[in-house]
């Protein structure tokens, strides 16, 4: 069935200090890894790192654009493995590596990388076949 699904959109977000401050404010997560450069350096990072959900927003944004609608899509599973930290100034892009179908479920294997090509997270998005959008264009566009 590869080639029959709508392209999974590539989504790019830029992470800046205001995003980290805003996420800390919204969530109440003031882990010093996100707020204290000295603490972060002592923990082995180059400086403060972004909250994990900030990078994840690229995946969620891509899923929402792919499926359409602005709410929680029903019966969807998203598995994310973090591969590396995200720092202030990083430019993150989420892209699909493959779209496959198994047993009535459409699986999108996606990856989020920074501008240097370093992978910061991997995601597997599982969507019931009935909800996955069909491609209206030629199949060579099927993987975004």
């Amino acid at each position: 069935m590869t080639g029959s699904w709508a392209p999974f959109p590539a989504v790019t977000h830029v992470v800046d200090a205001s995003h980290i401050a805003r996420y800390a404010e919204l969530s109440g997560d003031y882990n010093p890894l996100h707020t204290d450069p000295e603490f972060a350096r002592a923990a082995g990072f180059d400086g403060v790192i972004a909250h994990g959900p900030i990078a994840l927003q690229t995946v969620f944004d891509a899923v929402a654009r792919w499926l359409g609608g602005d709410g929680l899509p029903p019966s969807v599973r998203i598995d994310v493995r973090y591969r590396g930290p995200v720092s202030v100034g990083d430019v993150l892009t989420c892209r699909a590596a493959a779209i496959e179908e198994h047993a009535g479920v459409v699986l999108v294997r996606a990856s989020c990388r920074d501008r240097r090509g370093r992978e910061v997270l991997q995601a597997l998005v599982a969507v019931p076949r009935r909800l996955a959008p069909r491609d209206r264009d030629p199949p060579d566009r099927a993987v975004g």
Partner: protein
Amino acid sequence: MSSPADGPPRLSSVRYQDLAVGRRFGPFAERLDQAASDALRGEVGVSRAGTEAPLGVLPLLTLRVLRRALGGIVPGGVLLGLHVTTVEGLPAAGAVDVDVHVSDQRRRPDGGLSTTFTFALAAEGRVRAIVDWTILAP
């Protein structure tokens, strides 16, 4: 939205190694507001209006609840993985009940300790999503 500035302290004195698999916390009553939902439809903080809560509210609400469950955020913990299973939609604003338990804990080959928390989010008596966080202890 219950203000994250209220309630528990910012940082917790709990250590992940002191938690036991099966330990439960909650349920916690959270309030989601329209501004938070709209701030999490794309890039963080770039507001976009919508009537339903986006996927981005799931880590947000569970992070708030983790802070309440542990009496603050444990300093130095690093997120290893997150799993989301949606059941049905959630309004962009309203009450959400969240309970959480420690569902797994294991020693990694590199000696680090990972702890998984499983959250169930419900509104109007119906489960809307299940979220797992796996965190590497400092």
